[in-house]
């Protein structure tokens, strides 16, 4: 028992270490001073007002949202189709295919960034949004594939068979039976896809240019050159948003399990 206490004692410090940077950002965001100073000078919601009502973060925020949503709209069906093919069809290439589709997780994003930059400039692709979109889809696909393969593996195959035998074509079966049964995995994939895409910085650094800023880029440059309290406010909003979205996904998954 005594040793367990030592483990727990150490762990309290590690948990503090884990949460500290998030907490200091949130605490700083209520500071009355315009620039980050410690200890805080007073308590105010002003910076949240400023961030929401006007300002430098609005356009990048919507850009990032648009990017994350469109990325998810592409990566989720494409990744689900890949996972379905690998899970439900026998092929001697399945292992190779699976490693192939997961490989963007292994190759540093940095390298993909340079490679894509070289490619798009060789091809003369000027529009920033499609450039970023394509890269984001590549980065997100492995998350979807991995989650969906796990989801399909946990599903009882005979339910899909029952559907086919009752007269539903394979395609109908997929939409009427497989998709509803895979809902928890789909929710998890969608959540991961949105978050990973929304937070992606490196691709944007390499592939975007004037006129199209993402939120992580703007925050990144402000962290370097402009440590203001409103920066802490927008960062806190992102933290809250991510946590809320996560809770929502978990909640929806739980509801599905019961029925």
């Amino acid at each position, binding site marked *: 028992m005594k040793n367990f206490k030592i483990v727990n004692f150490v762990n309290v410090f590690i948990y503090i270490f884990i949460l500290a940077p998030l907490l200091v950002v949130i605490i700083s965001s209520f500071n009355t001073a315009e620039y980050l100073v410690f200890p805080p000078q007073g308590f105010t919601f002003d910076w949240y007002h400023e961030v929401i009502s006007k300002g430098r973060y609005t356009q990048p925020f919507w850009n990032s949202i648009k990017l994350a949503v469109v990325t998810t709209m592409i990566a989720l069906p494409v990744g689900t189709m890949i996972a379905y093919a690998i899970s439900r069809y026998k092929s001697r290439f399945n292992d190779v295919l699976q490693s192939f589709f997961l490989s963007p997780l292994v190759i540093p994003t940095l390298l993909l960034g340079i490679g894509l930059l070289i490619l798009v400039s060789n091809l003369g692709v000027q529009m920033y949004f499609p450039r970023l979109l394509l890269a984001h889809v590549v980065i997100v696909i492995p998350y979807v594939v991995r989650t969906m393969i796990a989801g399909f593996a946990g599903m*009882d195959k*005979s*339910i899909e*068979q*029952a*559907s*086919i*035998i*009752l*007269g*539903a*074509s*394979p395609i*109908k*079966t997929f939409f*009427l*039976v497989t998709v*509803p*049964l895979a809902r928890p995995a789909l929710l998890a994939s969608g959540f991961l896809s949105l978050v990973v895409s929304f937070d992606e910085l490196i691709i944007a650094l390499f592939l975007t240019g004037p006129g199209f800023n993402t939120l992580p880029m703007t925050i990144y440059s402000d962290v370097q050159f402009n440590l203001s309290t409103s920066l802490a406010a927008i960062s806190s909003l992102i933290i809250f948003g991510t946590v809320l979205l996560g809770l929502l996904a978990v909640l929806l998954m739980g509801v599905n399990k*019961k*029925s």
Partner: protein
Amino acid sequence: MTELQLKDIYKKFGSKVVVNKLNLTVESGEMLCLLGPSGCGKSTTLSMIAGMQTPTSGSIMLEDKELTKVAPHKRDVGLVFQNYALFPHLSVFDNVAFGLRRHGVPKSEIGDRVRASLASVQLAEFEDRFPAQLSGGQQQRVALARTLVLKPKLVLFDEPLSNLDAKLRQALGIEIRLLQKEYKFTGVFVTHDQEEAMLLGDRIAVMNGGNIVQLGTPKEVYKKPVDPFVANFIGESNLLPIANTDLGTSSETMEITILGGHKIKVIANDNNSNPSKVMIRPESIEVLVDKDIDSEKYNYLTGNVAYINYTGTSYLIGIKVEGIEKEFLVRIQNMTEDLHFSDEEAITVKWKIKDTLIY
């Protein structure tokens, strides 16, 4: 009339042969039980009929149609699964309506047909529930309704009762027989439980190692198992190895010696002049109480009581016979008085010569 015909069905998974040149004919309106040990290829055979698997070679005819060329969702075949396989996200009503909707049945008709079908499995009040809110037996009856509402010509059952407890198993088995009368389908019923096969099957096909070893009515299969495997699989049996065969005692019977030197008479069989095993069903054996010996009609064997089990409807006596490794089993039904044997007591049993089978 022949409803379903399997011709030379052969199925390999990789290099492993799972169904080996299987031939089978199922008559219209009958219930045929496929009975066999785990892994002998029963489910694979059903899957091929339903279209979930494709035979490596061979053909499957339903009436005059070659089924292997028909897509699985267009075959007029129903399948009831061991684990029910209900759609967990749909209500009982929608589960049953699922197939009707896929077949383009008009909306106005669907409600009536679903309710009629649910009524036939005594689940009329349950249409709004979800599968998770039903017991195992109820779920399986929803699965039955879901299949039968489409009025398929052929219904396949893959061990539909084996997840249920013993009482329910029998009740639902009988219900399936009644439903067959009502819906007039042809059935193929897979099971590894011989009692279930006896209860449900018009005929039983005993499978082993990817092939059918015997096909016949429950009585035929029970009374005249073609080999020791079938004998052992269906019911209880005493299999005694033969030491040597003495031919020509009389024209009709021959005398053989089993291990331990015991002599036994059997009906002579021209097809099997050199048998290696004797088989006697435990329930065709009686305990010798008086001293009347009729060796023209009966075989006798003496040993010592190893154990007596009372099961409520019968006694099972295990007898240690000299020279024979396994206990010799005797099942005695409908005893009016209690058996009085103590362990190790000497006991003599007898059975009719014509009940002695040789292999």
